[in-house]
C-alpha cells in the first residue's frame, strides 16, 4: 500500500495573517513540500491541474519533472490531469517524456474538472464531460500502445499515421488512475480497462464513497481483470495534526472556516463527522484511516490533503513530520495484516 499527499495548488489567503503567498512562492513551496514528503517517508506526491485563478497548477508535468530531479524515491502523480480539456496527444507526449526522465517513477490520475468556464477556453463544453473523458482516454491508450495510429473521433482533429513520441519507457505505458467524486461512469471506465479508481472521498460522506468503490470493484471483476477485492482503489483523505487534539482543532479552525469549497458552511465538527476530515493527534488519524478499510476494503493508495486553505509553508512542513509518524504506524498495521 502507498501513502502520500495530494495538492490542488491553490493560492489562498492565510486567514490568520491576511497574507497571500505569491504564485512564485506557491510553486516553490510545492517543490519544498514534495521534497519534505520524500524525507518523511511518503510514497507519492500528486499535483493538481487547474487553468484558472486562484490556482497555480496549470502545468503539472513541468513541476513534476523539477521535483523529480531533486528527489530519489518518491513517486510523482497528478490529482488530477484534465483529460477533458487537454489534448490526449499532449498527455501522451508529456507524460511519456516524464516517464523517461523519472525512470518510471510516476503515474497519473485523470479527472474531468468541474469548473464550467474552463471548458470553452479549450473549445469544449462541460456538458460533454463524460464523453470527452471516454473518447480522449480511448485515444490516449492507443497512442501509448500503437504506432502509426489512424484515428477519427468527435472531439479532436483526425490522426493519420501518427506515432506519439517518445514511446513509453520499456514499452510499458504509465499506470493510470481515474478520479471521480460522484460519476459512476468514471468508475465503470476504470473497471473496463482494469485501471485504478481513485475516490476523492474528502468532500462527500463515506457512504457515497463506499457505493462508488463497491460498484468499481464489482465491474472490475465483471470485466475479467481479477477478483473484486483485487481491484486497484485509491482514496483521498484530509488531516490536520497536532500532538494534542484540542490544539489541532484550535489551530485548524480558522483555515477550515474560510477554506475554499466548504468554508462558511458546516462546522468543523460536523464536517469531521460527515466526511473523512480528521483533525487531531497522529493516533486519531491512524485510527480514522484504518477505518476507511471497513467500507472501502483493502486498498492500494491513500493520499492526504495537507497544504490547502492558506496554510503557511512552515505549518505544512510540520504537518508532514507528523504525517510521517502516522504513515509509519499505518505501515506497521499493513505488515501485521500481511503476516
Amino acid at each position, binding site marked *: 500500500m502507498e501513502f502520500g499527499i495530494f495538492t490542488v495548488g491553490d493560492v489562498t489567503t492565510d486567514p490568520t495573517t491576511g497574507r497571500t503567498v505569491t504564485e512564485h512562492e506557491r510553486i516553490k513551496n510545492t517543490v519544498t513540500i514534495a521534497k519534505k514528503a520524500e524525507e518523511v517517508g511518503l510514497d507519492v506526491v500528486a499535483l493538481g491541474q487547474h487553468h484558472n485563478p486562484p490556482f497555480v497548477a496549470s502545468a503539472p508535468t513541468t513541476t513534476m519533472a523539477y521535483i523529480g530531479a531533486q528527489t530519489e524515491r518518491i513517486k510523482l502523480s497528478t490529482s488530477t490531469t484534465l483529460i477533458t480539456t487537454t489534448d490526449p496527444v499532449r498527455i501522451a507526449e508529456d507524460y511519456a517524456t516524464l516517464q523517461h526522465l523519472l525512470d518510471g517513477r510516476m503515474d497519473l490520475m485523470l479527472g474531468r474538472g468541474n469548473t464550467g468556464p474552463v471548458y470553452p477556453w479549450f473549445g469544449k463544453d462541460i456538458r460533454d464531460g463524460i464523453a470527452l473523458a471516454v473518447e480522449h482516454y480511448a485515444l490516449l491508450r492507443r497512442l501509448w500502445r500503437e504506432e502509426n495510429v489512424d484515428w477519427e473521433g468527435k472531439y479532436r482533429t483526425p490522426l493519420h499515421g501518427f506515432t506519439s513520441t517518445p514511446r513509453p519507457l520499456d514499452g510499458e505505458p504509465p499506470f493510470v488512475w481515474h478520479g471521480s467524486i460522484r460519476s459512476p461512469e468514471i468508475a465503470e471506465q476504470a473497471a473496463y480497462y482494469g485501471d485504478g479508481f481513485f475516490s476523492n472521498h474528502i468532500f462527500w460522506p463515506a457512504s457515497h464513497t463506499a457505493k462508488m468503490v463497491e460498484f468499481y470493484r464489482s465491474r472490475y471483476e465483471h470485466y475479467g481483470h481479477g477478483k473484486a477485492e483485487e481491484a486497484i482503489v485509491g482514496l483521498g483523505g484530509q488531516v490536520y495534526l497536532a500532538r494534542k487534539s484540542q490544539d489541532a482543532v484550535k489551530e485548524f479552525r480558522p483555515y477550515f472556516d474560510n477554506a475554499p*469549497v466548504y468554508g462558511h458552511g458546516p462546522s468543523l465538527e460536523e464536517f469531521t463527522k460527515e466526511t473523512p476530515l480528521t483533525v487531531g493527534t497522529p493516533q486519531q488519524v491512524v485510527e480514522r484511516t484504518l477505518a476507511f478499510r471497513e467500507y472501502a476494503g483493502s486498498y492500494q493508495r491513500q493520499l492526504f490533503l495537507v497544504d490547502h486553505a492558506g496554510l503557511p509553508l512552515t505549518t505544512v512542513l510540520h504537518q508532514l513530520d507528523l504525517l510521517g509518524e502516522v504513515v509509519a504506524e499505518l505501515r506497521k498495521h499493513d505488515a501485521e495484516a500481511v503476516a
Partner: protein
Amino acid sequence: MTRLTLAGGPRAEDVRRIAVVSAGLSDPSSTRLLADLLGEATRAALVAAGREVEVELIELRPLAHGITDALLTGFPTGDLAAAVETVAAADAVIAVTPVFSASYSGLFKTFFDVLEEGTVEGKPVLIAATAGTARHSLVLDHALRPMFGYLRAVVVPTGVFAASEDWASTSGGSNGVEGELRTRVDRAAGELADLAAARPALHRVDPFGDVPDFSTLLGGA
C-alpha cells in the same frame, strides 16, 4: 443521465407515501396549518380510493442550517439527508411556502435547489402558499408553478392559496377553514390523490443499476 436516488425498503404494493414540505417559520404558522390540512385531506382521499397512505411532514425551519451547508458543500447530511430521501421516495409531494417579497421564501427555494436533479421529475405535486393578503395569490402561478414545471413535476391544476382572511372569515356562518378554503383544499387534495392512486407505488431504483455499460459509453463517444 444517472438518477442518483436511493433504494427504498420493501413495502406493500398499495401504500402511497406523501411528503408534505412546509416552509413556515413561526410556531404555529399558517403555512404549517395549511400543510396539515392538505396532508390530511390527501390522506382521506387516498383512503377513500382504497389505498394505504403514509403522510410524512418535512418542516424546513429546523433544517435551515443544513440546507445552507448543503448549498456550500454539495451534499446533504443528517436530518436534511433524511428529508431529501423522504421527498425522493414519495409518490406525491405537497409543497407549501409563505410568500416573502412577492415569491416563495428563500428557504423553500433552497430546499428544492439542493435536491438531486430529477428528484421530483414526474412526481405529482400540489402547490400551496400563505400570505397576509390575497393580493399575493398569483404567486402560485407566477412562481411555484413555473419552478415545478422546470423540475418536471406534474403539478395538479388546483393550487391552494390562503390569506389571513381565509383563516379568519366567518362568512356564511362557518369559519374560513370549513368554508371556501376547505373547498379548495379538498379539490386540490382530490386531484393529487387521483394522480397518486392511479400510478403504481414508487419503487426506488439502485442508482448504480442504470450506469451504461462501457461499450455503450464508448460507442456514444
